[in-house]
């Protein structure tokens, strides 16, 4: 490692902060254009969905526990449970299922 680590960290932190900060500070007005408004409205749903699947299947030690977590979380979310409830239930399902799988 030739270059100092902290300079790398400074560079990456700077780039990342600018990416986040510029749109938030430069776009001050409400966007009137219906197409742009609609696009920005759909952005979080697409982004989050793309990040959920299939990544959730790879997040745990076994594909099956990931799939079970997906099913449990989707069911509870559909029933309107809170972020915390859905999230902890998904974790609990993985924990219990992997424990059972280990016993078999």
């Amino acid at each position: 490692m030739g270059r100092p680590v902290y300079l790398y960290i400074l560079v990456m932190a700077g780039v990342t902060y600018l990416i986040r900060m510029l749109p938030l500070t430069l776009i001050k007005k409400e966007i009137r254009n219906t197409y742009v408004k609609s696009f920005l409205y759909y952005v979080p749903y697409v982004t989050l969905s793309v990040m959920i699947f299939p990544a959730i299947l790879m997040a745990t030690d076994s594909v099956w526990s990931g799939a079970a977590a997906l099913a449990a979380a989707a069911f509870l979310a559909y029933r309107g449970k809170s972020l915390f409830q859905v999230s902890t239930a998904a974790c609990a399902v993985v924990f219990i299922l992997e424990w059972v799988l280990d016993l078999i």
Partner: protein
Amino acid sequence: MDDKIQQFRYGLKDGVPIGLGYLAVSFTFGIMAKKAGISTLAAVVMSLTNLTSAGQFAALGVIQSGAPFVEMAAVQFIINLRYCLMSCSLSQKLDRAMPFFHRFLISYGVTDEVFGVSACREGVLSPFYAYGLICVAVPGWTLGTLLGAVSGDLLPARLLSALGVALYGMFLAIVIPPARGSRILAGVVAVSMAASFLFSIAPVLSGISSGFKVILLTVLIAGAAAFFFPVGEEQKGGKG
């Protein structure tokens, strides 16, 4: 004044799953940073100042290879460009009368998760709600890095595996309820997941980095949805 405290409290509460999920992911990051020969302090400073998962994991390889700073900047730019889309989206959720300095502070905390929770909240976004989220997310991310770097075997593997789905569970809790009330949103969610799956298995496409995949699919799918199903004023809030 009371409203600010109340919003901050809501943020703290909704931030708990974020903090837990971060703890698991950053724990792994801490272990890998140590393996890459980066000091514990540097790993913690990196987590505190960057607050980004994919970007930090990629940075380890860049630092290890001793690449030029320009390369580091380019890697971070590409992987984290999705935050630009998120910030554009968030800019429309903020109250225009809000003091300007809040925008600089919120910017620090625009992660996939903080954004997801904030953007899908009904109505105008209070900066104090975002601060609540950030106040739980940042300690989770930083502390996890520290624990991972100091002691890779502090948490049992099974617990780490279980915590690994916390963030995904939270994402599902964000996208599914509004999709229940809107066939368009349900379709958008389904198409996005299917496309993401396709990108992970198809030749060539699977070679695309995860950060760029998010950008590409977001622009394509949100762009198409906005074209075919423009959102009117009265439809906001996922009830279209």
